[in-house]
C-alpha cells in the first residue's frame, strides 16, 4: 500500500516548480498581450502623424499658388508647437492624475515623467509614453483644422499664438471633460475617437476665427459669390487619401488596445463610412450643381470619416454606411450654407469637421448599440457644451489678438500673397 502510494509520491518540488513557472507564464502572457497592444497604439500614433501631412497637402492644394508656402509653414509649425505644448501642459490638463471624476478643470503640473510602474503593464494596455504620444498626435490635429479655414489672409504670428494656446489650453480642457473622466463622461456622453472632442473643437475654433477674420478679398462681391479655386487638386487628392489612411490609426488606435474584434469592426465601419461619404457627396453635388465636383467628393470622404468617428465602435457596418451617406450628402449643402452666410472657408473645414462632427456625435444617439432618446439628449448636451466653450474661448482669444497685434494681413499683402508678404518665397519656380 505504502509502496503503491510511494510511486505516486513524486517530489513536491516538481509541483512547486510548476506553480512558479505557471505563475511566470501568467505574467508573461499579460506582458505579451501588453506588447502587442502597445505596439498597435504606437503604430496608430505614427498613422495619426501622417494625417498632418494629409491636412497640409489638402490645405495647400485648396489655396491659391501665392499662399502655398505660408500654409505649409503653418502646418509644419503647428505640429511642432502642438507636440511641445502638449508635452509641457496639455497632457496633464487633459488627463489629471489627481483624478476627480466628473470635474471640469484641474490645474496641471508642468512637464511629464512616468511614475513608478507606468512604463509597464501596471499602467494599462500600453506604457505612459505610448499614451502621451498617441494623445499628442491627436492634439495637434484640431489646430490644423483651423489653419485651413483661416488660410490666405491670417497673420502668421497671430495664427501661431492662437494655435499654440488653442492646443495647449482649450483642446485639453474640453477633452478632459470626457476622456479625462470629467463631467461629460460622468453624464454618459459618448465620443469614441473625437467627432466632437477633436473635429468639432477644431471646427468651432475655425468658425470663431473666420467670423472675426472676414472673407478673402474678392470672395463675396456685389456681383455675387466668386469661387476662388484651389491651385492644385492632385495635392488635395493626395491629402484626402493620406487622411483616410491616417484615420485607421485615429479610429483604430482609439480602441486603445489591439482587441481583434473591436479594432477590426472599427476598420470596417471607418472604411464603409468614408466610402459612403464619397457616394453621398457625389450624388448631392450632382443633384445640386449638375456637375461632378471633385472637391466635394473629397470633402465627402472626410465628412464620412468625421461622421463615423464618434461611434466607430458602436455601429454595425450597415449603420456605418448610412452615417457616411448622410455625412457626405450634408457636405455640399453645408458648403453652400456657409457661403450664403459669407463665412469664407477655403478648404471647407467647418463643413467637414464642425457639421459632420456634430452629425456623427448625434448619430451615436440614433444608430448603434447605444442609441436612444436619453443618449441622444446626452449627445446634444455634449455638443452644446463643447460648442459654447470652444467657440467662446476661440472667439475671445482671436478678438484679443485682433485688438492687439491684429489678425489680418494688409490688403496689399493679401493681394500679393502671403508667400511674398510673410516669407518672401515662392512655392513654385
Amino acid at each position: 500500500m505504502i509502496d503503491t502510494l510511494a510511486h505516486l509520491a513524486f517530489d513536491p518540488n516538481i509541483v512547486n516548480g510548476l506553480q512558479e513557472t505557471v505563475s511566470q507564464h501568467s505574467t508573461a502572457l499579460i506582458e505579451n498581450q501588453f506588447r502587442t497592444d502597445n505596439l498597435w497604439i504606437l503604430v496608430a500614433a505614427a498613422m495619426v502623424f501622417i494625417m498632418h501631412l494629409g491636412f497640409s497637402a489638402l490645405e495647400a492644394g485648396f489655396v491659391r499658388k501665392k499662399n502655398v508656402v505660408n500654409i505649409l509653414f503653418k502646418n509644419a509649425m503647428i505640429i511642432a508647437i502642438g507636440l511641445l505644448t502638449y508635452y509641457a501642459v496639455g497632457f496633464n490638463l487633459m488627463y489629471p492624475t489627481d483624478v476627480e471624476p466628473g470635474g471640469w478643470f484641474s490645474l496641471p503640473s508642468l512637464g511629464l515623467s512616468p511614475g513608478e510602474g507606468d512604463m509597464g503593464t501596471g499602467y494599462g494596455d500600453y506604457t505612459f509614453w505610448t499614451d502621451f504620444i498617441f494623445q499628442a498626435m491627436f492634439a495637434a490635429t484640431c489646430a490644423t483644422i483651423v489653419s485651413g479655414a483661416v488660410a490666405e489672409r491670417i497673420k502668421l504670428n497671430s495664427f501661431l499664438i492662437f494655435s499654440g494656446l488653442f492646443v495647449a489650453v482649450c483642446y485639453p480642457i474640453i477633452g478632459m471633460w470626457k476622456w479625462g473622466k470629467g463631467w461629460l463622461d460622468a453624464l454618459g456622453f459618448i465620443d469614441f475617437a473625437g467627432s466632437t472632442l477633436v473635429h468639432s473643437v477644431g471646427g468651432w475654433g475655425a468658425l470663431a476665427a473666420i467670423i472675426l477674420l472676414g472673407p478673402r478679398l474678392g470672395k463675396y462681391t456685389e456681383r455675387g459669390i466668386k469661387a476662388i479655386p484651389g491651385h492644385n487638386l492632385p495635392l488635395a487628392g493626395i491629402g484626402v487619401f493620406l487622411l483616410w489612411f491616417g484615420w485607421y490609426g485615429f479610429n483604430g488606435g482609439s480602441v486603445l488596445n489591439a482587441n481583434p474584434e473591436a479594432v477590426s469592426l472599427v476598420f470596417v465601419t471607418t472604411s464603409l463610412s468614408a466610402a459612403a461619404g464619397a457616394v453621398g457627396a457625389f450624388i448631392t453635388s450632382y443633384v445640386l450643381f449638375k456637375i461632378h465636383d471633385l472637391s466635394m467628393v473629397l470633402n465627402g470622404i472626410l465628412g464620412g470619416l468625421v461622421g463615423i468617428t464618434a461611434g466607430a465602435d458602436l455601429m454595425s457596418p450597415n449603420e456605418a454606411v448610412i452615417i457616411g451617406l448622410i455625412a457626405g450628402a450634408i457636405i455640399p449643402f453645408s458648403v453652400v450654407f456657409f457661403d450664403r452666410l459669407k463665412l469664407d472657408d477655403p478648404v471647407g473645414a467647418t463643413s467637414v469637421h464642425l457639421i459632420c462632427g456634430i452629425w456623427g456625435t448625434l448619430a451615436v444617439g440614433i444608430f448603434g448599440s447605444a442609441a436612444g432618446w436619453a443618449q441622444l439628449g446626452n449627445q446634444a448636451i455634449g455638443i452644446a457644451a463643447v460648442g459654447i466653450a470652444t467657440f467662446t474661448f476661440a472667439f475671445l482669444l482671436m478678438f484679443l489678438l485682433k485688438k492687439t497685434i491684429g489678425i489680418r494681413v494688409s490688403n496689399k499683402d493679401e493681394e500679393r500673397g502671403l508667400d511674398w508678404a510673410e516669407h518672401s518665397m515662392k512655392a513654385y519656380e
Partner: protein
Amino acid sequence: MKKIEAIIRLSRFDAVRDALADIDLRFFTLSEVKGFGLQKEQRTYRGSTYDPDYIARLRIDILTSDVRVDEIVSTIKKAAYTGEVGDGKIAIYNVDSVLRIRNDDKDENAI
C-alpha cells in the same frame, strides 16, 4: 515685312501648324495667352459657379515678307476655323526690320 499675329483656339493649333507646314511655313513663335471675348466658359468649384472670364488661347507670331501675307492669312483662317464664336482674330503689323542673331542676315533674308 509684316508681322502676322493670330489668336487661335488651343484645339486648332495642330491643324494650323500642319496647314502652315503645307505651305512651307515652319518658322513662327507661339505664346500662351488668355482671351477675353464673346465666348465664355463657366466653371464650377465648391458649389459656386464662376466665370474665369478668359479662355486659354494661343498666339502665333509670324514674321514674313509682304508678298506672303495673304497666303499665310488665308491658310490660318481656314485651318483655325470652326464657325463658332471664339475662333479668334488675325492682326497684321508693319515691321521696320528683322535680324537673325546667328549671322548677319537682315530683313527678308532673316525671316
